[in-house]
C-alpha cells in the first residue's frame, strides 16, 4: 500500500434514504488495497446500510462508488460479486439444510462455467472443473479448521461455527474485497479470538482487503489499520484506531449527548 496508489474502493458522498428515514448522509470513504478497515458506530448508525450500498443491495440517491477506478454505483449485487467483492451477513445466511461443504461450494458458483449437458453427465471439462473447485474449497476448509464439520448440515452447527462457514463461503469466491458484517457478534471471548486470528490470517495469506463492522473495541484496536466511525448516517471520525477511540465525537456518539 503506497499513498500514491489509487484506492481500491472510493465511496464519494453517498446518501441513502428509506422513505423519510435518512440512513446515510453524504458519506465518503476510501479503502486501499491490503487494508483492514473497521466500521464502527452505535446501533442504527448506518453501518450495515453502508456495506449494503458497497455490495450493491441498496443504491444511493446521490454520490458514487468507484471500485478499482470504475464507476459501479448502479450495479446489481451479483455484478458486484463478479467484480470480486464478497460479504458475510449480520444474521447468518447459510443454506441450512445443505452440508457445510456444499454451502462453501456455492461460493465458487461465479467461478464455474456451466454447460448443462456436460454437468449432467459429469464428464470432461465439467468433471475437471468440479474437482478443481473442490480442491480450492478444501484449502479453505483446512485454512479455517472446519474439517470435522465438512459433511454436517449447516443448520445444525452452533452459531460461532456458522459464522465461520459463512466466512469460508465468502473466501471461496476469491474476493479482492471482503465485507464482514459483525463477524464476531454473539461470540464468546474464545470464539472471538479465533475469529480475529482467522481474519488476520486471511489478510496475511491471501492479501485480501477487508472492511468489517465490529462493536467490540478491543477487537477493532487489535486488527484494524483504520477505523471509520458513523453516527446517524454521517461519518463522524476516520483514522488510526487509537485516535478514533479518543475522538470526542465518537465518545459522545457511544455515550450519548443531548441533542439540540
Amino acid at each position, binding site marked *: 500500500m503506497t499513498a500514491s496508489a489509487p484506492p481500491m474502493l472510493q465511496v464519494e458522498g453517498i446518501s441513502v434514504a428509506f422513505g423519510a428515514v435518512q440512513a446515510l448522509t453524504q458519506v465518503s470513504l476510501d479503502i486501499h488495497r491490503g487494508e483492514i478497515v473497521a466500521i464502527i458506530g452505535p446501533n442504527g448508525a448506518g453501518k450495515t446500510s453502508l456495506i449494503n450500498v458497497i455490495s450493491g443491495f441498496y443504491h444511493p440517491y446521490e454520490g458514487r462508488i468507484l471500485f478499482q477506478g470504475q464507476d459501479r454505483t448502479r450495479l446489481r449485487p451479483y455484478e458486484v460479486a463478479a467484480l470480486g467483492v464478497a460479504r458475510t451477513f449480520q444474521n447468518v445466511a447459510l443454506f441450512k439444510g445443505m452440508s457445510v461443504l456444499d454451502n462453501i461450494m456455492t461460493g465458487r458458483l461465479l467461478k464455474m462455467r456451466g454447460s448443462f449437458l456436460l454437468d449432467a453427465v459429469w464428464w470432461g471439462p465439467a468433471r475437471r472443473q468440479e474437482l478443481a473447485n473442490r480442491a480450492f474449497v478444501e*484449502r479453505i476448509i*483446512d485454512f479455517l479448521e472446519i*474439517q470435522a464439520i465438512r459433511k454436517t448440515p449447516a443448520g445444525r452447527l452452533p452459531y460461532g461455527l456458522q459464522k465461520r462457514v459463512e466466512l469460508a463461503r465468502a473466501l471461496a469466491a476469491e474476493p479482492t474485497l471482503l465485507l464482514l458484517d459483525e463477524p464476531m457478534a454473539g461470540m464468546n471471548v474464545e470464539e472471538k479470538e479465533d475469529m480475529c486470528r482467522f481474519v488476520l490470517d486471511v489478510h*496475511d*495469506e491471501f492479501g485480501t482487503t477487508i472492511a468489517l463492522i465490529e462493536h467490540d473495541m478491543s477487537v477493532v484496536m487489535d486488527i484494524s489499520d483504520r477505523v471509520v466511525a458513523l453516527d446517524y448516517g454521517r461519518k463522524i471520525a476516520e483514522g488510526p484506531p487509537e485516535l478514533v477511540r479518543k475522538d470526542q465525537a465518537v465518545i459522545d456518539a457511544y455515550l450519548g449527548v443531548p441533542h439540540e
Partner: protein
Amino acid sequence: MASTTRGPATGNGHAALDPALDTFPKLVADNARRLGDRVAVREKDLGIWLAYTWRQYLEESRLIALGLRSLGFRRGDKVAIVGDNRPQLYWAMMASQALGGVPVPLYQDSIEREMQYVLDHAEARFAVVEDQEQVDKLLHVRAECPRLEHVIYKDPRGLRHYREDCLLSLEALEERGRAEAQAHPGAFEAEVAAGRGDDVAIICYTSGTTGQPKGTMLSHRNLIVTARNAIAHEGLTDREEVLAYLPMAWAGDHMFSYGQSIVAGFTTNCPESGATVLHDLREIGPTYFFAPPRIWENILTAVMIRVDDAGWLKRRMVHALLDVARRVERARLGRQPVALGDRILYGLGQLLVYGPMRDNLGMGRIRIAYTAGEAISPELLGFYRALGVNVKQVYGMTESSALVSIQRDGDVKLDTVGTPLPGVEVRISEGGEVLYRSPGVFLGYYKNPEATRETLDDGWVRSGDAGVLDRDGHLKIVDRAKDVGRLADGTLFAPKYLENKLKFSPFIKEAVCIGDGRPYVGALVNIDLGSVGGWAERRNLAYTSYTDLAQKPEVYELIGREVARVNRSLAEDEALGGARIRRFLLLHKELDPDDQEITRTRKVRRGFIAQRYAALIDALYSDRREVAVEAQVTYEDGRVATVRAQVRVADAPAATAEAVEAAR
C-alpha cells in the same frame, strides 16, 4: 496365590538383536528394501488420504536428517517434537535417530511453562513442530531455553512475517538436505550404520501425578525387542492398519504407531485433525486399534446419546439386544454354555444391532483392540466385547516400553490386565506393589539418578501400582499403590476403582473419590456436558452454562441414581465392596490439565485436588447442603481467571434395585 509370574519363553532369547537391524533407522532401511512400495503411513490432508510408501518414508527421513546435519547436528543431540500425529513428525523422529540423536516428543497441548521445563531439562538444540501455535509457544520460552537453536515448522501458515533467525520451514530444511546429499554422498548411510541397539532411542517425559515430569530414556533395544515379542505373541502381521491419533509424547503411541509399525511393517494412518478422529476411524477401518478408557467412554457416550434420540421402537430394540449380548459375553468369558434362546437372539442382534453398530463406529475390521493407560471399568470393557469388538486390557507404562502384560485371545477376564508378555516377569512386593523385569525396562531417567534409583532396583521396576496375581497368573491392578487407603473403620478403599464405576455412566465425565481416614466415601463428580445437556434438552430443562446445569436439582437426582447404581454393583465385590459412596457433589467446572487438576493423559492429581477443593471436601463430611467456592481457571495462553459458584452437596440415595431399574 502365585507371587511371581513369567510370560512365555521366546525361544531364541528374549533380548537378542541382529546387529544389522538393531535400530529403527536400520529397520526402516530394511523395510524400504523388503516392502518398498507398500504403504507405510497415510495422512488425511485437504480431505484426501495421501499414502507414503516405505521407500518414501526412508527418503523423507533421509532428507530431514541431512538437513539437520547441515545445521550442525551432532550425535546425542536432542530434538523436541511437538504437534499432532503427522507423518512428517514421525520422519523427524526417524531422522534424529538416524543421526544418533534423540527425539523428545512433547504433548502438543502443553502450556508454555510445561514446555519450557522439558525443553530446558532435555537440553534440546532442535525442535520440529507442526504449526504457528507451537512456534509461538517456543518463541515465548526461547529466552529461558538458551540451548534451543533451531525451530523447524511443518505448516508455514501465519508464519510468513516471522523474522526470527532460528525459524526454518521443513521444506527449506529438506532443500538443505538435498544439497547436503550432493556434497556428502553416503553420509546418511554412514550415520545410520554407526547406530547401536543400546543407544538411547527416545526420551519420553512422563507427566506424572506429582512433581516435575521425568525423562524416561528408552533404547532401541528396549523398544524393538518389546515390539517384536508383542507382535509374535499377538499374531500381528505387516498387513495391519492402525490409527495414530493419541499424543506422540505418549509411550503407547510411540510403541504402536512407530515401534510396532516399523518392526512389523504395518501401516499407520494419521487423521486429519483431532476433531475428525471418529470420522477418520470409520474411513480407515483399522484392524488393530488402541485407546485409553476415556476414548472408549466417549465413544460409548456418543453412541448412547444417539440411541436415546432414536424412536421408541429402535431404542427398545437396541437396549434389549445389548442386554442379550452382555449375557452371552458373560457366559463366554466364564466358559459356560449359552442358552439356545440367547444364541438365536444373539444372531438376530448381529444382524440388527451389533454388526451395524460396529460398522458405524469404524470397528468392523478390528482384530485386536487394546485399552491402556488407565484402569477401565469391567462394565465398559464388557460392553465392547459384547458388541463383538475384541478389546483387551493391556498393562504397561513408559518405563516398560509401554508393555508389560496383555490379555490373551481366549483368556480374557474383565477385571484383570492379563498375563505377562514373553520375556517379562511380574512379582508382587510384600507391600502389595507390582514389580516387573523385562527387556523393555528403561535405561533410567534423564539427568535424574535419584529418581532412577527409587524406581529401578536390580532390573526390577517399581510400578507404583497396587495389584494382585490371581490363581491363573493374571495380574489385577487395584489402584495406584499410594492412593489405596482405608476408611476410618478400617474398610479397604481404592478410589480409582469407584471412580471408574462412576465414569461408566454416560452422564459422568470425571470423578474423584475421597475416603482415606474418613468415616465414609465422598465423591466429587464432573458431569458430561454433551450427554447431560442432551438429557436436559429432552426434558425441556433450560440452562445457561456448565455451572448452571451442574447445579440443577434434577441433575443431582440423575447423578444420584448413577451413584446408587455404583453402590449396588459394589455389593458383588468382596474385597472392596465395603466402601460405598455416601455423599457426593457436582463440580461447577470441568477438571482440566491446564489447571493441573488432571494430567495431560487425564489422570487425576489427587493431592492437588485435595488442596484446591478443600472447602468442597469438608462440606462432604459435614451436614451442609450448600457451599460457596471459587476456583482458578488457566487459559492456554497462561492467563488466569477466577470462577465463583454455589455448589450443592447431596446424599447418595439408598440403592434399591427398583429405583435403579426405574432410572434406566
